[in-house]
């Protein structure tokens, strides 16, 4: 019995190395993929953010801006952003009448802004600005990007709901004097706009003003108007996405060129690597063997946070990085609290095994209380916070939970394997404790 006790159980050490190697392999194989998958926020990647104030449309001035109207506007904006092909846009209702739209990584910002704030009210008027037909007369979702049968230029085709409406309109217009035989197709016509003035403008709201010399007995209307394939499909896209039920006024715009974003990102990543390397070196130097365990669990922590972050489809921003740093700090802190306890126990003369057990047990409640208090604060920030504050809170909660998993359970498991293997028995120096500091019992 006594003889067996002295032997080192090599299987425990083998399990330790198996776990460490498994973690190492997993990180080296998939880390790059995980890092590439992270969606970076505006501040890191570039892109832009627009804050809109919502106002009722001209014709319904008295309409109150309520929650329902705001929600409708948000869905309309969402549908439009799909047209842009931006993934994970962030659209938030703020206050009573504001909507914040954030798009990261948009190449053509001017196009995006125009696409967002246009009301997409398609109207067909005569040369005297008399309304003939509007978007509500069209089949919903029936707009298509197409090519003109003869000229092969890109066009947008829409379908009229009522089978005879378009025929009636063209009959009416073609019966007018020749100079008035035009059907003016407007986008976002506003009270006071006139055909004569608008058609002279370079950036006109008039999409096109085709001549109508004969009756067109069709439900399909083809709109040609100097489109490129892209602009035609954009228009079809926003027509299908639906008109905005409100008018949006830009309150603020924050656009970040990707160049500065990339520059700061590169520097920040390198700085982060240096910082983490310093932490690793310090932990190894100060806690020796336990420091090595901390290096493994910290690596696992950083990797896991990235995985969970991607899994949540969250967008990494600067406040997120701040929370990540705090998370690293709290993960290291959990290790330090445990290790200091174990050292205390070793100095008081306990054996390695019993010091490990007592130290782990006693440090747990400290770590729990500190972490729960911080999570509580983070949860309040998440609940009451807006945009950046909320992003910070999400990252902080993820970080704390993960750090608890790695720094408490992970470190305990890994260190436990060594302690239980009995390889460390009577070797307090490996824990950074000098023999001379151990008090005699």
């Amino acid at each position, binding site marked *: 019995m006594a003889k067996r006790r002295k032997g080192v159980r090599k299987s425990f050490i083998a399990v330790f190395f198996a776990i460490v190697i498994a973690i190492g392999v997993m990180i080296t194989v998939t880390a790059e993929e995980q890092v590439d998958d992270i969606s970076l926020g505006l501040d890191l990647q570039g892109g832009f953010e627009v804050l809109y104030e919502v106002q009722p449309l001209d014709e319904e001035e008295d309409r109150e801006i309520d929650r329902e109207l705001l929600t409708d506007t948000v869905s309309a904006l969402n549908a439009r952003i799909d047209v842009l092909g931006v993934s994970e846009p962030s659209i938030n209702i703020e206050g009573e009448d504001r909507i914040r739209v954030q798009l990261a990584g948009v190449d053509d910002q001017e196009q995006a802004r125009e696409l967002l704030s246009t009301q997409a009210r398609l109207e067909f008027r005569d040369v005297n600005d008399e309304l003939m037909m509007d978007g509500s007369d069209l089949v919903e979702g029936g707009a298509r990007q197409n090519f003109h049968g003869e000229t092969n230029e890109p066009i947008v085709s829409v379908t009229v709901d009522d089978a005879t409406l378009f025929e009636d309109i063209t009959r009416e217009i073609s019966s007018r004097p020749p100079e008035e035989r035009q059907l003016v197709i407007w986008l976002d016509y506003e009270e006071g706009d006139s055909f004569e003035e608008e058609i002279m403008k370079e950036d006109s709201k008039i999409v096109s003003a085709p001549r109508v010399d004969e009756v067109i007995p069709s439900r399909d209307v083809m709109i040609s108007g100097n489109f490129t394939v892209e602009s035609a499909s954009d228009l079809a896209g926003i027509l299908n996405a639906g008109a905005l039920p409100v008018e949006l006024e830009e309150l603020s715009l924050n656009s970040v060129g990707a160049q500065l974003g990339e520059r700061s990102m590169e520097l920040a990543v390198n*700085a982060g690597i240096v*910082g983490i390397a310093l932490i690793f070196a310090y932990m190894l130097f100060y806690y020796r063997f336990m420091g090595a365990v901390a290096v493994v669990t910290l690596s696992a922590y950083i990797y896991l946070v990235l995985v969970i972050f991607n899994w949540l489809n969250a967008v990494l921003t600067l*406040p997120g990085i701040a929370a990540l740093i705090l998370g690293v700090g709290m993960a290291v802190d959990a290790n330090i609290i445990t290790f200091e306890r174990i050292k205390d126990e070793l100095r008081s003369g306990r054996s390695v095994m019993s010091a490990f057990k007592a130290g782990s047990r006693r440090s747990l409640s400290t770590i729990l209380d500190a972490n729960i208090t911080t999570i509580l604060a983070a949860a309040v920030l998440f609940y009451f916070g807006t945009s950046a504050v909320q992003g910070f809170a999400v990252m902080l909660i993820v970080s704390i939970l993960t750090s608890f998993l790695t720094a408490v359970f992970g470190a305990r498991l890994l260190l436990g394997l060594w302690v239980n293997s009995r390889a460390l028995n009577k070797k307090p120096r490996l824990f950074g404790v000098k023999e001379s500091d151990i008090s005699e019992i």
Partner: protein
Amino acid sequence: MKFNSETSKLDFIKHRKKFFAFSGAFLLTGIILLFTIGLNLGIDFESGTTVDVLAGEEVTAAEIDQQFAEIGYEPDDIMLAGENNEIGRASFIGGLDQEESLEIQSHFEDIYGSTPNVSTITPIVGEELAQNAVISVLIATVGIIIYVTFRFEFLYGVAAIVALFHDALFILTVFAVTQMEVNIPFIAAVLTIVGYSINDTIVTFDRIRENMRLEKAVNTFEDISRVVNKSLVQTLARSINTVLTVVFAAGALLLLGGEGLRVFSFALVVGLVAGTYSSLFIAAQLWAVLKSKQIARRLRREELKAREESEPENA
């Protein structure tokens, strides 16, 4: 580092009045400065527009000014940024509209081949964010007090919250004194310090709580001081090691993270120092003072009660 609580001569309690006086004076200066000259608010909090011109090579303020003059704009302020002064940051107080900013962007794109960053900020965004952060933190402090009262006791909660505000105000004071520009990432840094401060204080308090349980009778301020001092010495190695590791991360960002992260990481480093200082020299001492007063009150009540019982119905 090895701190033995039995042999250590470190006394954290004796000089508590000096720590209180230092923090009090420093923070009072901060409050006065905040109300008089205030913080140097960046464009995030002042209405206006900044245009970051990325020249890709060293530029001078005069060059940028001239470029703006060519298209008929006159910036209110031009600041150079970047390691080799290759970024020109022009501020327009009052703001530019959509067309104007597009005109400026395309003008500088033609010249330098890269689109300038245009930030048109009505202070609504920054002000609301700051306001929201302040309100959220205030609500969070209520939550923290409730939790700490439940797990520890009310006085620990009070001391922890005082330390939290101490640390947040400490950063604000440093920024009021240095007049460094305050931006939105600064808010993230302050939030981080709030989180760190509470975490750090709770760890120290946890040890005090544990040591208090081991004591048989704690009646005088000397008793409490002894326990608090012992706890601080016992957790000292942890306090120093933890702040060192976080400072490694924040310091690396400060030194190597580039212009964009400077304000943020500087605020972090200042806050970490303040957070550790308050955990070691303010929070526990404050708790000790409050606790001894509470015990004194209790003892007086008991004494009074005992006296009443021993001499019943004198009248």
